[in-house]
């Protein structure tokens, strides 16, 4: 895939990874990011750079019990996942329960300051989660709309030996663009990625690279389809993560791009 010119959204990948974009810029960039596997990879690299920045400082000692405190906190989270027992639910309370409730109230008051701080953090996180989910939802809706556009054709890329993995290719001929949706894809080795090829005039034309999620799913949108020639098929191989100009490994999945 070609690299965008200077001033393209991709130039913001480093700032995004550092958390240095304003809210609007972040929204716009994430919309762009959703459709650009290359930029996603770049952001992941810049995130590692950011994580490494802290190591530029002299190492400092934490308390010896920090590990235990972390694990205790996680245990506390674990216990919150467990549903409450019936005795903790509603109903008439016995005197013992009343004293217990009072004691709990006192503890609650003592911990109120900490709780407020914690709640503020939770609220900020929830807002962030909500914004992220909204973006995901919008991206999915956009994908659905793109697939349902009149004139979009669906083709299947299948594996000859193993019927398990598959790729659906939605070809929007009006826009010379495609969406690929993969499922049950095996993980690729470190440094490798799946690469899509269009077979045009009998020759493979390199297209996007992508890696599946741990669930085996992969989706790439806005994949340009070659226009100046007869595109008869599409295929998938495993190539170096940056992509290859020619296939260097056997075809894993293939399918015709012509209506029978």
């Amino acid at each position: 895939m070609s690299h965008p010119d200077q001033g393209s959204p991709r130039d913001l990948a480093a700032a995004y990874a550092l958390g240095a974009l304003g809210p609007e810029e972040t929204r716009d960039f994430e919309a762009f990011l959703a459709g650009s596997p290359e930029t996603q990879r770049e952001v992941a690299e810049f995130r590692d750079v950011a994580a490494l920045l802290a190591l530029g400082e002299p190492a400092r000692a934490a308390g010896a019990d920090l590990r235990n405190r972390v694990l205790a906190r996680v245990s506390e989270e674990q216990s919150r996942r467990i549903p409450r027992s019936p005795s903790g639910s509603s109903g008439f309370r016995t005197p013992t329960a009343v004293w217990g409730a009072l004691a709990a109230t006192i503890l609650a008051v003592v911990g109120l300051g900490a709780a407020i701080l914690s709640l503020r953090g939770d609220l900020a996180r929830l807002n962030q989660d909500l914004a992220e989910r909204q973006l995901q939802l919008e991206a999915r809706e956009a994908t659905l709309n793109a697939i349902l556009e009149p004139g979009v054709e669906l083709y299947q890329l299948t594996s000859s030996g193993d019927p398990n993995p598959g790729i659906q290719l939605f070809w929007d001929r009006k826009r010379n663009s495609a969406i690929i949706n993969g499922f049950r894809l095996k993980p690729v080795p470190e440094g490798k990625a799946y690469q899509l090829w269009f077979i045009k005039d009998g020759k493979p034309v390199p297209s996007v690279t992508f890696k599946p999620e741990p669930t085996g799913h992969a989706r790439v949108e806005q994949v340009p389809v070659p226009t100046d020639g007869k595109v008869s098929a599409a295929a998938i191989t495993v190539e170096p993560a940056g992509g290859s100009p020619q296939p260097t490994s056997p075809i894993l999945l293939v399918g015709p791009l012509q209506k029978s």
Partner: protein
Amino acid sequence: MPKPAPPSAPPADHDLVGRAAQGDQQAISTLYDRYGGVLYAVAYRVVGQRADAEDVVIEAFAQAWRDAIRFEATRGSVAGWLTMIARSRALDVVRARSRRDRITASAAADQPQRSPAMGDWRADPSDSYDHAERQQQVQAALQTLSPPQRQAIELAFFEGLSQSEIAERLKEPLGTIKTRVRLGMQKLRDSLRPFFFERGP
């Protein structure tokens, strides 16, 4: 050079996150052994004192435990994910502190302590997660940046400023700041690529 994990090595980071999502606390324990030091370094750099930095690390791992189910290996390394969580929680602390008129901050400022090595964090018998070499390389890579580039990057990451806020603070044009951040980060990426953290499949 970093040592690749041997075939019989401890579980991969993304597997640990997967196990944490299933409720395996031992997975978080292992992640702490690997990256607790990195998270503490980030937290300390942002909040500037030990007690708050420790609280940040605790809350960061608690959040990682809650959010493990949403972790997407394709979006980067586990170390990067954990670091961003710790940074966000640390910035929350700093913001809350400034709202409290910095009373707590002035009362509890710690003196930096001399380095017990990052290796002290490792309970893992393998030395695959020893950050000492990474640390040396990061310090060397940071030296290759121009001071303005380094300043812009550090203001963004450790103080949570947007590029516009950095421009405002430094009284420089926004475009200049954007260029410094981009070129500086690209330079660091090129220098540090061999030291990136383990990636998912």
